[in-house]
């Protein structure tokens, strides 16, 4: 087990290296760039000032030197400063990460909670009207363009009924509220985005749980439990449920990476101050250090999430551990 983990950790290095190389190439080999975007509209721009700006940001050096310099700083966990406001990339990310995490973790919890309930109940009532309606409803959520659903729900609950705030994470008067009101304020802002995110992922989880549950129920040990007269409640909710939730842990691990990469489409609609927005702003403004930082961190956490999923699975299921 320890060897396995060490091997996996070592494998992270070349993969991470590849990611930074690909991202760097995309940024620098495509037409346009930081200096063009920021200066071409200005008639006072002279070739001289462009050259000065380029050397200020180190963009006048050959690409491989720029890349090596970036790598050197990256080893010391220094992602440099943003071109836009000169602030460190790490601080900019640290400002945006909580909003994305808050939204995604809440959505994930809701998604798994409802998904497991729906999956187990429809496995027990297989092919019934209930089972079929759950399939159709969750499938509709899966096919729904989330930005459109967001627009409609914002209009109904935010504008027409005036029940919920329509955008952002906090109200304008947030700083003047007491702690209880602050929590309620954030919860209110969370409600729509969390619901919409969870609705989209429900189909996947509930079906996964359902199939796993059906598979478990058909196994010999469940049949044996029935045969020896064990009460059905105990069979289903203790033995079958426990065993059928094992594969769900893999699913949980696989969704960890998604937690930090906010969807920029979704975050733009809700004016959500998260990672997706940060990435979007960085890309549109050719803010190279921020782009590199966001991609590398997202990729690193993705890899870590996958690793954690594999390890936790091995820890829980002895059959894998002893192989």
């Amino acid at each position, binding site marked *: 087990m320890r060897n396995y983990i060490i091997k996996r950790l070592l494998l992270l290095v*070349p*993969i991470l290296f*590849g*990611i930074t190389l*690909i*991202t760097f190439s*995309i*940024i620098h080999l*495509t*037409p*346009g760039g930081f200096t063009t975007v920021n200066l071409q509209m200005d008639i006072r721009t002279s070739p001289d000032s462009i050259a000065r700006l380029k050397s200020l940001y180190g963009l006048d050096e050959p690409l491989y030197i720029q890349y090596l310099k970036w790598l050197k700083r990256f080893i010391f966990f220094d992602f440099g400063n943003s071109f836009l406001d000169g602030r460190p990339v790490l601080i900019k990310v640290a400002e945006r990460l909580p909003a994305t995490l808050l939204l995604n973790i809440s959505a994930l919890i809701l998604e798994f909670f409802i998904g497991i309930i729906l999956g187990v109940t429809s496995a027990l009532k297989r092919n019934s009207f209930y089972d079929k309606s759950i399939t159709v409803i969750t*499938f*509709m959520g*899966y*096919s*729904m*363009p989330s*930005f*459109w659903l967001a*627009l*409609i729900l914002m*209009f109904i609950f935010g*504008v027409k009924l005036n029940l919920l705030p329509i955008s952002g994470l906090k109200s304008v008067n947030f700083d003047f509220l007491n702690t209880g009101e602050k929590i309620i304020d954030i919860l209110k802002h969370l409600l729509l985005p969390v619901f919409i995110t969870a609705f989209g992922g429900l189909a996947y989880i509930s079906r996964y749980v359902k199939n796993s549950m059906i598979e478990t129920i058909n196994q010999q040990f469940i049949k044996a439990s029935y045969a020896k007269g064990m009460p059905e409640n105990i069979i289903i909710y203790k033995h079958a449920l426990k065993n059928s939730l094992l594969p769900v842990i893999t699913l949980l691990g696989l969704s960890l*990476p998604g937690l930090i*990469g906010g*969807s*920029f*489409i979704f975050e*733009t609609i809700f004016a959500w101050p998260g990672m*997706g927005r940060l*990435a*979007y702003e960085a*890309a*549109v403004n*050719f803010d190279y250090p921020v*782009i590199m930082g*966001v*991609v590398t961190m*997202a*990729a690193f956490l*993705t*890899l870590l999430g996958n690793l954690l999923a594999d390890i936790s699975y091995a820890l829980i299921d002895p059959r894998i551990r002893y192989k």
Partner: protein
Amino acid sequence: MKKMIWTGLIVLIFFIILAIFAPFISSYDYKTQDISLRLQPPSLKHIFGTDELGRDVFTRMLYGARVSLSVGLLAVIIATFIGVLYGAVSGYLGGVLDNIMMRIVDIILTIPVLFLILMLIVYLGPSIINIIIIIGLTSWTDIARIVRAEVLKIKNSAFIESAKLIGLPKRVIIFKYIILNTLGPILVYIVFGISGAILIESGLSFLGLGVQPPYPSWGNILMSGKDYIHTAWWLILFPGVAIFLTVFSLNLLGEGLRDLFNPKLKKE
């Protein structure tokens, strides 16, 4: 299962017919503006109303169907082509090459797809062609993995052994015997891929990063509609329902096909 396939197919064919025969179905033009007719609610003359520039929304949606459907289809064709080739070569040749090729896939899979697409769109500029190419280039990894897994399964089967024994060239074995036998999963992927591509395209167009005016797409009709949400509900409702129905029926079709090709489910 059959019900799913048929429902999906019928809705899709309906949309495809509307898209192909757009000029015959509507007598309006998708880009002629008439400010005196702006933001008219649905009526007999304009069944889906008019937009903020007085253009007929129904007509724009018909032409938008052309754009959205072809972006989805063409992007997936590109992705499938790359992915099938990549997966088949990697799986069939095996060894060190396979290992390297799969690590490259791992690397690409770790970069968030939406962000990769965003970067490429910003740097290459939004146009219909660019969007097709970018979605195609960023979504071939899944199919490459699927095909590779299938190839590994088929590679060691008896009929491939005998094909090798009678001396058929590798090329023939890969394309004729192996890829043809993975057509089931490829088809399922294509259907789901199209629905995913349509969602991405509409999301990008909704933010103004996708199909650019005056060309209509369901996403950019929504984009201009969101500023008039208080007064012109028809600009929001119809394009959204169109996207939803298309994606929903594609997903139904995909699910149905997946069950059809899954021998485990057939027995039940």
